[in-house]
């Protein structure tokens, strides 16, 4: 028995820190609060609706004055009590000012930067990843299907950064960053160090989009350094090729933003299907998810541009 206990206390146990899931679940809980508050408000609406019904019934001669007075009095008392409780527990918007989420939504909708990033398309949906300390992080999807990730400064009511642009092309996700159309390659001849390998896997499996690839029979079949070769369009006809192989690269994009990458690719195989998740080791974010294997960096193959 002693030996058994010793063995059990000495085994290496799996431990993971899933920042993405932690944040997403917190956001879901926050959303639940919003829904609950809305439900409380609709409860109030139901009572006011009842009074309207009685008023109508009275004018149409469907119910007696005595009954109407009785029901109105009870309903009125209930509404007043409910309203008092509500105003005490949940301050309505006109008393407390807009909530952070409402404010963040307004900033996003008014932002010309976001409108430009979505190519002028209307906003189809906004999902908040975090809202705290006057900062919000959101994924905004346009009606064209293009999504961007933006950081919103609630205090100054500005969009402080707008950096990741992902587009679902029907087969997977393509990406344009600051207007640069990337061409991704896997560098299979250079071995990735253990620390970067672990980091790349962790990024891939904590990202809400790439997490969907990890079904129960999915297996990670390869982790390699990646290269991001980009065509940087200066004018409609003149273009210049840039290669971003490491973290030291800093290039201005057409809109003046700067991009800095340390890309790696994680290949996830499910049966016959391979998906390549390209992650940026610098920012800890997934920058692209594409079906199939990335072309090898030793080849001169040029994947089709998505821009």
């Amino acid at each position, binding site marked *: 028995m002693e030996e058994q206990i010793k*063995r059990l206390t000495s085994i290496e146990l799996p431990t993971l820190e899933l920042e993405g899931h932690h944040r997403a679940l917190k956001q879901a809980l926050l959303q639940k609060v919003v829904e609950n508050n809305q439900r409380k408000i609709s409860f109030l609406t139901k009572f006011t609706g009842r009074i309207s019904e009685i008023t109508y019934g009275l004018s149409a001669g469907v119910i007696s004055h005595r009954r109407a007075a009785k029901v109105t009095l009870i309903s009125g008392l209930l509404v007043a009590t409910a309203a008092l409780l509500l105003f005490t527990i949940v301050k309505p918007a006109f008393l407390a000012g807009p909530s952070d989420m409402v404010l963040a939504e307004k900033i996003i909708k008014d932002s010309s930067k976001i409108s430009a990033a979505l190519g002028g398309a209307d906003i189809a949906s906004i999902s908040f990843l975090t809202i705290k300390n006057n900062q919000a992080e959101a994924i905004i999807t346009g009606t064209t299907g293009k999504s961007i990730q933006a950081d919103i400064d609630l205090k100054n009511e500005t969009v402080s950064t707008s950096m990741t642009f992902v587009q679902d092309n029907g087969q997977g996700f393509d990406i344009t960053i600051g207007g640069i159309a990337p061409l991704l390659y896997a560098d299979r001849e250079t071995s990735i160090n253990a620390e970067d390998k672990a980091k790349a896997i962790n990024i891939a499996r904590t990202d809400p989009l790439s997490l969907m690839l*990890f079904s129960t029979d999915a297996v990670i079949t390869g982790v390699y350094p990646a290269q991001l070769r980009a065509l940087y369009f200066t004018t409609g006809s003149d273009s210049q090729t840039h290669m971003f192989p490491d973290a030291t690269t800093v290039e201005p994009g057409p809109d003046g933003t700067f991009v800095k990458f340390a890309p790696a690719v994680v290949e996830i195989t499910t049966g016959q299907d391979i998906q390549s998740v390209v992650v940026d080791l610098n920012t800890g974010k997934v920058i692209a998810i594409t079906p199939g294997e990335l072309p090898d960096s030793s080849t001169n193959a040029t994947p089709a541009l998505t821009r």
Partner: protein
Amino acid sequence: MNMEREQEKALVEKAKTDPDAFGKLYDEHYSPIFNYLLRRTASVADAQDLTSEVFMKAFKNIGKFKWSGIPFSAWLYRIASHEIINKYRKGKHEQSFNIDSTDTDSAPARPSLLQVEDETKKYEDYFVIHQSISRLPAKYREVISLRFFAGKEIHEIAQILDKPESSIKTLLYRGLEKLRVDIQEPAVVKMKLPG
């Protein structure tokens, strides 16, 4: 009652009406609960689902939580234990093959996300133990998992499972004995063949 407990009690009371306070409790307990569920299920996906369920239920029912000197974490572990039982009770029939055991909540032993080569090697002992624990009857599995996967002391397990400490000691002793026998003579795994 020590200071820490007093603070926790105040925070739990506040969390009943203040989502920010619940957020603080969530931040503090997310990681231990998630990792306990990860070790119980050996599946990141299942651990994520179950963690979501645990905190959703805690959030929904925190108004009913009555402070009786038992830490808030014990309540979360109790919800987690119920969720594990519920999940595998529901999922039992969905498996394409069954391990020959009358009372098992075992998840696949080497699931996708832990199937990275280095990690499989690193956690070899864990996988062996997890397999054996998952073959034990639920009452032993629960106690052993809380003791060795969550690092809980006897009195804490008693609080979580709402049982006397003496019962926990007995369950732990008998469970370890069964585990020892199972590891020495692993159960025969019968697979259902197609057709």
